[in-house]
């Protein structure tokens, strides 16, 4: 997440990565537009969470869990459910992460992943309303980082979407002011799942799904959420202060579009048919 470059990485490292890229090679041998292997473990928290998934992106891994509770709606949206997405950069995952309250990089991670869900209107918030002004479903999706080797954003986005897709929860009705479980099991009203894709700019080169070594020498990164209709539903330039040209943004959008369908299908097939 952070721009560690000047403090930790020597000029030699930056030169090494850049030289490789000039030859058309990445530090781990991938093509510029190629993701690392993505492994999704469905429902690792089956007994306690309404939905969950562990996602591995090479040596980066995260766990996402979904809790569905009931509560009153916000006063300004009385007929909509509550959706809260958070992410934590736990010190377990990297010697670069610190103990204590979340710092800017962790806040940015959480907000980017949240925006990917919220701005894509992934869920139909009105379908999460039980009784307007009184009771709605509250959907909390939380991501914990387990191993950090770059690109937490995409791993978290995949994990959150997988966990939401696999979520099952008991239907609740309000009868005479009391909450009653109907016994029926519901799934979330998912209407437009978008996946986030992160491209790093290193010199004149763009690489998707950057590993830590690339993240440490990148000028900046561009994260793009792409929905099932190939619309862009959220975007964030971050990960450093390097400027980026319009042409490179266009190129990055193309790389995101090229990867999006396959990842979406992996999520869907894994979560719809868990072993």
């Amino acid at each position, binding site marked *: 997440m952070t721009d560690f470059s000047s403090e930790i990485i020597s000029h030699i490292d930056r030169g090494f990565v850049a030289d490789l890229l000039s030859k058309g090679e990445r530090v781990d041998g991938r093509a510029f537009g190629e993701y690392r292997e993505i492994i999704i473990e469905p429902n690792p928290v089956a007994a306690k969470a309404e939905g969950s998934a562990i996602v591995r992106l090479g040596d980066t891994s995260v766990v996402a869990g979904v809790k569905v509770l009931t509560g009153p709606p916000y006063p300004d949206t009385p007929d909509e459910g509550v959706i809260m997405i958070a992410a934590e950069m736990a010190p377990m995952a990297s010697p670069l992460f610190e103990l204590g309250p979340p710092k800017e990089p962790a806040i940015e991670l959480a907000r980017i992943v949240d925006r990917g869900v919220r701005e894509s209107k992934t869920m139909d918030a009105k379908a999460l309303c039980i009784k307007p002004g009184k009771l709605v479903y509250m959907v909390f999706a939380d991501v914990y980082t387990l191993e950090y080797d770059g690109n937490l954003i995409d791993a978290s986005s995949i994990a959150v979407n997988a966990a939401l897709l696999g979520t099952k929860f008991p239907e609740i009705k309000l009868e005479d002011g009391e909450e009653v479980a109907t016994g029926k099991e519901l799934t979330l009203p998912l209407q437009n799942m978008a996946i986030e894709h992160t491209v790093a700019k290193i010199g004149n080169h763009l690489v998707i799904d950057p590993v830590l070594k690339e993240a440490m020498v990148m000028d900046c990164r561009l994260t793009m959420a792409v929905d099932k209709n190939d*619309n862009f539903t959220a975007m*964030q*330039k*971050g990960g450093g*202060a390097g400027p980026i040209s*319009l042409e490179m943004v266009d190129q990055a*959008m193309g790389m995101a579009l090229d990867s999006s369908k396959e990842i979406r299908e992996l999520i869907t097939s894994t979560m719809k048919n868990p072993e």
Partner: protein
Amino acid sequence: MSPEVKPDSLLNAEGLRFDGRRIDELRPVQMEVGVLKTADGSASIRQGKTYILAAVYGPRELHPRHLTLNDRAFLRVVYRMATFSVPDRKRPAPSRREREISMVIANALQPVLFLEQYPKAVIDVFIQVIQADGGTRCAAINAASLALADAGIPMRSLVPSVAVGKAEGTLIVDLGDEEDKYGEGDVPLAILPGTNELTLLQQDGSFTREELMEAMQMGINACKYLHELQKDALKRSYSKKAPEGEDDDDEMDDYDDDLETDLGEADIMEDE
């Protein structure tokens, strides 16, 4: 406060917006440099009803010390909204949104600064939103880069910024509150005027790739215009500072020497 009413339509039959603007027309913009006496540099911006102050201190010693960077200055940006700047009262403590926006503003400004000239120091940019009516992060960048220049901090150029959005399928420039709330998307960006490279880029809503390319191009065009307004504001501030009877141009020439133009940009004052 004036109670907010949802407009029937954001664009009328003639292709004009809710408030009568053309689709590529900015709201009225007033920028003023040197508005705060105690800060090393300062500026204000009024863009529509948005009203923001920016103050710069530094380069100066950094506290707490563990934030110190050994090879360059720490650019610390603090973007804060007044509790009364929004329709509902904002809680006084800094929100996660404010902290994230502080971070993207720092990223937007950093490319024009020579931070490596001030190792271990801090350059503080304090931004106070007095009234928020859409586009606050962009307006803040416009004001902050003026405040940095006012503080005499060497810069490659000023950084203009604007948000482009979409209403009823049409791309529109410089969103107001209603267009932000009832429109279909928002693309705030900031540029280096010399190269047109983007130093801020965010997006929400829903856009095709082609729409985004067009939106960014519209934003770059609007930034070019805002850059002229920034330079005007800076020029006015130097006129004011010049002792009476002295030649204003000399004063500005002195300033020019302090500015670096590595990015090939015309010097800030040059074409005035």
